[in-house]
């Protein structure tokens, strides 16, 4: 709409070049897929490898690439260059902020009412609990990645520490959930500091790789330290949470019996739902409050420019460590909740894919926007549920989505958080004042 004239130069050579591009793409696809798709290998029962051909699939994939590149090329010519970030007009912006103002309370009220509305639908309640778990993880990681700008690829390690802290303390010593929950958080925060110390000097990509390695180390130790963690078999029989000491079961002094209502297993699900909702809101509240404190401001300053941050006299060491510890603590809480909800934990739940999923939620949500992260978690987990039937294709689609989102809107799909405070007016400084020799 805004600039139709920019693309008028091309159509003269349109069709020919279009077909040429599509042909080249199809040819590349043919070579790429020729062996991997065209031939299927499988080890037979005697260990001998056999293969069969799948030229039909190969042909259709190449055809899809051919057609797809024509469509994309046409779209590109109509819409204009993609990838360029366009400015949203102010009218739309104010409209969006109006929606934004009412969206949060509306969503919150809806979330609180979910167990009332969907009381009979166990599946939806389970899904809602799962979504809220990821919302909480997303908000926790948001402190590290979104606010402090430290790319953490091993967040799942803290989730694992929290889950195993509760699982082991509860099964070995019979401690209750409400004692273990803060302990799990503290232990995870401790591990966060432990990881934070060595990586203080690193930045960007190196930091990402070290946190990834840390996450893998934790997972490998859990797998191999069989005497403590049960190894790949995991920890089972983790006690369910109690309503502040009152068990939510069918017994005589259970929750239902004391209230004099009929027992239903849904009570526990509803309780778990409100528990994770409370934990997630706690995360959100703490984050919002912290952001207004000097430490929160320091995190954002660190994200924007570390060198300038140091020049201003902010202690980057403590700033980074508190970010790691805070994020890790919330990860630990979420882990303890995960353990009590599942009743069983094993190292399989704490793979790198999990870290990447939480990170994708934070990035999709716009790195720092609380509402964005919540919506992104809903979209991600909901999307995963849609693909449940296509288990094997799920991660494939997830990976593609990650690449496409980065190309399309690297600053996040749903929201974007600008620094909380910034200079409203750029101050021009006269060159006389900054001339050499006058400093």
């Amino acid at each position, binding site marked *: 709409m805004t600039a139709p004239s920019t693309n008028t130069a091309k159509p003269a050579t349109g069709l020919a070049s279009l077909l040429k591009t599509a042909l080249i793409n199809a040819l590349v696809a043919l070579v790429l897929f020729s062996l991997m798709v065209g031939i299927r290998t499988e080890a037979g029962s005697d260990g001998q490898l056999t293969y069969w051909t799948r030229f039909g699939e190969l042909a259709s994939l190449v055809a899809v690439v051919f057609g797809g590149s024509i469509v994309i090329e046409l779209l590109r010519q109509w819409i204009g260059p993609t990838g360029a970030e366009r400015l949203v007009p102010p009218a739309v912006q104010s409209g969006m902020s109006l929606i934004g103002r009412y969206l949060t309370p509306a969503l919150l009220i809806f979330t609180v009412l979910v167990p009332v509305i969907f009381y009979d639908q166990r599946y939806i309640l389970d899904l809602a609990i799962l979504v809220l778990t990821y919302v909480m993880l997303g908000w926790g990681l948001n402190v590290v990645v979104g606010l402090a700008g430290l790319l953490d690829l091993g967040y799942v390690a803290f989730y694992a520490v929290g889950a195993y802290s509760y699982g082991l303390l509860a099964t070995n010593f019979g401690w209750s959930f409400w004692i273990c929950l803060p302990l799990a958080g503290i232990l995870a925060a401790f591990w966060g500091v432990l990881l934070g110390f060595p990586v203080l000097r690193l930045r960007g990509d190196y930091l990402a790789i070290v946190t990834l390695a840390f996450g893998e180390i934790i997972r490998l130790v859990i797998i191999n330290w069989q005497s403590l963690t049960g190894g790949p078999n995991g920890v089972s029989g983790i006690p369910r949470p109690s309503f502040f000491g009152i068990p939510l079961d069918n017994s005589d002094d259970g929750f239902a019996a004391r209230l004099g209502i009929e027992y239903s297993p849904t009570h526990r699900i509803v309780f778990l739902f409100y528990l994770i909702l409370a934990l997630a809101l706690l995360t959100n509240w703490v984050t919002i409050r912290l952001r207004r404190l000097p430490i929160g401001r320091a995190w954002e300053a660190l994200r924007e420019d570390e060198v300038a941050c140091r020049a201003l006299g902010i202690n980057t060491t403590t700033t980074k460590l508190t970010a790691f510890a805070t994020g890790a603590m919330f990860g630990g809480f979420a882990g303890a909740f995960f353990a009590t909800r599942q009743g069983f934990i094993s190292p399989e739940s704490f793979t790198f894919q999990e870290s990447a999923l939480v990170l994708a939620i934070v990035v999709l949500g716009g790195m720092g926007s609380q509402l964005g992260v919540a919506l992104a978690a809903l979209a991600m987990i909901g999307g995963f549920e849609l693909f449940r039937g296509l288990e094997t294709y799920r991660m494939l689609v997830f*990976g593609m989505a990650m690449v496409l989102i980065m190309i399309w809107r690297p600053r996040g799909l749903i929201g974007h958080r600008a620094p909380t405070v910034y200079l409203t007016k750029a101050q021009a400084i006269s060159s006389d004042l900054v001339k050499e020799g006058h400093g």
Partner: protein
Amino acid sequence: MDYFAQQLINGLVLGSIYGLIAIGYTMVYGIVGMINFAHGDVFMIGGFIALITFLILISFGLTAIPVILLVVLLVSMAITALYGWTIERIAYRPLRHSFRLAPMLSAIGMSFVLTNYSQVTQGARVKPIPPFITGGYTLHESPDGFVIQLSNIQIMVVITTVVLLAIFTWLVSRTRLGRDMRACEQDQTMAALLGVNVDRTISMTFVIGAALAAVAGLMYLLYYGLVDFFMGFVAGIKAFTAAVLGGIGSLPGAMLGGLAIGLIETFWSAYFSVEYKDVAAFSILIVVLIFMPTGLLGRPEVEKV
């Protein structure tokens, strides 16, 4: 002592494979300044393509092993190189001037795509092949019966690595392409002003890196006799560790780091515990980055504001 010597041989062979993968990491980091997270998966794809080519050639009735090996090497290098090129084109080039973390996240996405692509197309099960290159030499036999073996495949892996490294060093130091690469590494804008086709040079870097990863994939397939869709992840992290240990951006460093990681991993498995060998490799990565961020042969990075 004999045990030690045997482990030394094993470690050097493993290290050669890591080194070949590490070169891809180090080159890409040198030029584009990003960690090509999907590189480990490119190595895995190379292994798969080698496996499939093997199967086809054998079913056509080819028996001459040198011919088979040569064809497999060329086919898997060519196709994997095209994978490298496509990945750069799709996932990294649009993000070249984006914010710092974008290419990294895109690379993680690409890594998932490749892992699951080969799981979907080739199945999740481990694919074994019968040993192609058998035989070897007994170097030394100690009185208590312990034998130091040097198998033909081990010799082949090391020789291939050395030859490729020689070709590659020549490529970077003597050819036009190598000069362009070094120019882009120093200053892309200036290189472009002086007539270097930056896009093409970066593409070629990915192509060469992927081709070397394909060789590593083939060597892995021959040496261990199997491939599976998940092998790229751990191998990738270890090779990256090797690149960092050697000093990222430095080619001899990548090879040296690869050998060091291979040796450390082998000796750790031999003398301490097999279970914790990956933990050892990852711990080295952390320790190196903390105490020696520039690695063994790397240049210190100047912080630009």
